[in-house]
């Protein structure tokens, strides 16, 4: 454990732990758009910039809290004039991509960002945080990735066509902070990323809950039981099982 001084208060960090992980654990607020604890830091949105001065250093420097590993005692400032200016500018710039989105609205208000004219992006409201790419890769699929570069960068399936790899699990949509990924459901059909999937109904409550492709894929990668249950019914069954276990 190392002694880390955050905003004047002593904290303890594990060696190699990121600044953001330490601060989240200690309840010190740092705003993020591109961070998800399942994937670790990406250093993409740069909203989490903080100042750090490590032992032996004369000047503090600006680093991304989500990717900076703590390896020695240090002093950290999570809010300064410079940091607030960065957050204000980033909120202002990202809000152009998602100008009616509640999250961006909140961030702009919080940091006093002025609004610039909105720009058209595809998919609408996408702030290119990259979480969907990680979610899809983590599922073992990588059906979506970022295409092009620079100001033309966007998230898509290869050639914008229905991807063989996409199983319609919608993990991408679930992690999206701005709800930019469209999941259309009608009856027992789900449409996502230009591809249509048949939904399987929960054997208990009858609600369509997952795509056939997803359940087949999961079946190949582990034994999740014979019964096809939606999340709510699975929780209920689990709770019931726990009761019998206790008794």
């Amino acid at each position, binding site marked *: 454990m190392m002694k880390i001084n955050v905003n004047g208060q002593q904290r303890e960090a594990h060696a190699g732990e990121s600044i953001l992980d330490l601060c989240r654990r200690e309840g010190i607020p740092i705003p993020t758009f591109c961070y998800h604890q399942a994937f670790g830091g990406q250093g993409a949105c*740069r909203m989490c910039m903080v100042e750090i001065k490590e032992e032996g250093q004369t000047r503090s420097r600006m680093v991304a809290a989500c*990717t900076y590993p703590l390896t020695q005692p240090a002093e950290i400032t999570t809010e300064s004039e410079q940091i607030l200016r960065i957050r204000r500018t980033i909120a202002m710039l990202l809000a152009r991509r998602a100008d009616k989105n509640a999250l961006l609205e909140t961030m702009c208000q919080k940091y006093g960002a002025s609004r*610039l004219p909105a720009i058209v992006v595809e998919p609408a409201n996408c702030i290119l945080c990259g979480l969907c790419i990680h979610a899809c890769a983590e599922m073992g699929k990588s059906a979506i990735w970022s295409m092009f*570069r620079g100001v033309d*960068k966007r998230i898509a399936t290869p050639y914008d066509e229905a991807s063989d790899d996409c199983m319609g699990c919608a993990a991408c949509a679930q992690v999206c902070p701005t709800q930019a990924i469209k999941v259309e459901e009608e009856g027992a059909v789900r449409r996502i990323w230009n591809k249509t999937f048949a939904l399987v109904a929960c054997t208990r409550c009858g609600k369509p809950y997952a795509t056939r492709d997803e359940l087949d894929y999961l079946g190949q990668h582990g034994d999740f039981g014979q019964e096809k249950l939606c999340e709510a019914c699975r929780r209920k069954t689990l709770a019931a099982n726990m009761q019998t276990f206790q008794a």
Partner: protein
Amino acid sequence: MGGRAMQTEMNPGKGDRQTVLVCCGTGCTANGGREVFKAFSQSLQHHPEIEVLPVVKATGCNGWCEKGPLVRLIPKDITYCSVAPADVDEIISKTLLQGVPVKRLLYRDPVSKEHLTSHHLTDFYRKQHKIALRNIGEIDPGQIDDYIQRGGYQALQKALLGMERQEVIDTIKAAGLRGRGGGGFPTGQKWQACRNAAGNPKYIICNGDEGDPGAFMDRSIMEGDPHTVIEGMCLGAYAVGAARGYIYVRDEYDLAVQYLRQAIDDARQRGYLGKNILNSELSFDIELVRGGGAFVCGEETALLASIEGRVGEPHDKYVFPTEKGLWGKPTVINNVETWANVPVIMLHGAESFAAIGTDKSKGTKVFSLVGKVVNTGLVEVPMGTTLREIIYEIGGGVLKKRSFKAVQTGGPSGGCIPAALLDLPIDFDSLTEAGSMMGSGGLIVMDDHTCMVEVARYYVSFLAGESCGKCTPCREGIRALLEILTRICEGQGSIEDLDLLEDISVTMQQASLCALGRTAPNPVLSTLRYFRDEYLEHIQQQRCPAGVCRALSVFHIDPEICNGCGVCVRHCSVNAIRGEKKQVHVIDESICIHCGECYRQCAFDAIKLR
């Protein structure tokens, strides 16, 4: 080309064997250098009276691209400029056979009006000090023996047979070599970190992904002297204990790839690469990787991702590649020019290298001098040389004797330095202080017909397509900067825009993920710092003082000055200028598209801006 040289070597004759060096660098090749080379090879066959056939060699870039194709005759030390295949017979009959120079092909000094027999006598070369470029133009890059004859692989021999690994690092440290790719990080320190780092195997990488518009120093080295890069990397591998190296070459550099590939094969055959090099404990081999065509892959973490087969996007470098680099293993990445310096330092010692340059920047730097300058080309000068010396003494001043306005250094994310700083001795630190950077060494000279707002807009537009788009400040910041600069150039800007430019720029500098984003606002901030008046003129007076921004440039002809020469009429693409020869001309405002071509062409400055 090699066959020709070998024939003569097997045929030792009487008298001096002469060598004809034909520059076949990319610039000279574009101007017909290859044809000149072929013409020499063929014509010499038809001269039975020549007892000892001269050796004809195609060399790498001599740097003096403005005067190419260059032909040099050794040992007479005669340099011919702008040689065409039609000139070859005359050169053979006069110079090779009779020893008389062909006067019309010699360089004529513009000041003294004298014809100079050798390029060594010209201002362009006299002020240069060649270390990294020492062999280029002197050897056939396809012949390993040419390199060896000029002392090649001796440094490797010296190190492997007589120096400890740490000694090699200490020598580089003592020499004060700093990375030539842009950052200027001390090379010895980098090697030391990699040597000390835990983890195996270790890797050596040569960054040859030169992408700055107008920069061609690394290309020239890879095309003109590929073995120096290989030897430098071998020395690095020995120092840090690496067994494998990669040369990452920009995909567009076909000739470089061709020569490097051959050089690697030749070095393997001669035992300079492979197992137990020169019977030492060092086993090291190099693989060539062609880049994917993205500017950002010159950034080292993006380069690593690209070699690994991932998308060429950078990641935070809080843990240096010397600890966690290629496939998570300790890796040294140095730029082509840095590697080219290494054998020289090792062979001649740290002291002689450290004696050149400034206090904190040692040795020389190669610059590609381009833009509105008389002598464009590649120049290598000691660190600490002033911009004035490079532009006026070596470069011969501004084209058409126009007035100097600025020099853009350091590639697209460098900055523009004004005339007031022409006497700045350039090194890594002085350029950074001036709001620009060394970068890889691009120098683009601009005259008074250059609009600085448009220059900033141009560079930002380049970066808009080349940013990887991963982090917000760079991607969205560049987008916003480009919109604002375009607005100003079109006459739609406001004073508040200047604050917005600064605000976004500062965030980009402080918060961007990699150096590309952190330096991307340099063209904007440096022009705002030195040429703010021009921005204000665009915004407040709706006028582009350089006559470049079409929406803000209205031209008319001053009847007092116009002598009716007709040059403007010939250059006007829409026939908007009327007037009899030797009579005052007039621009028809209803037709004029404000391109400014007449304004730039008029030799009498008779065309005026509103």
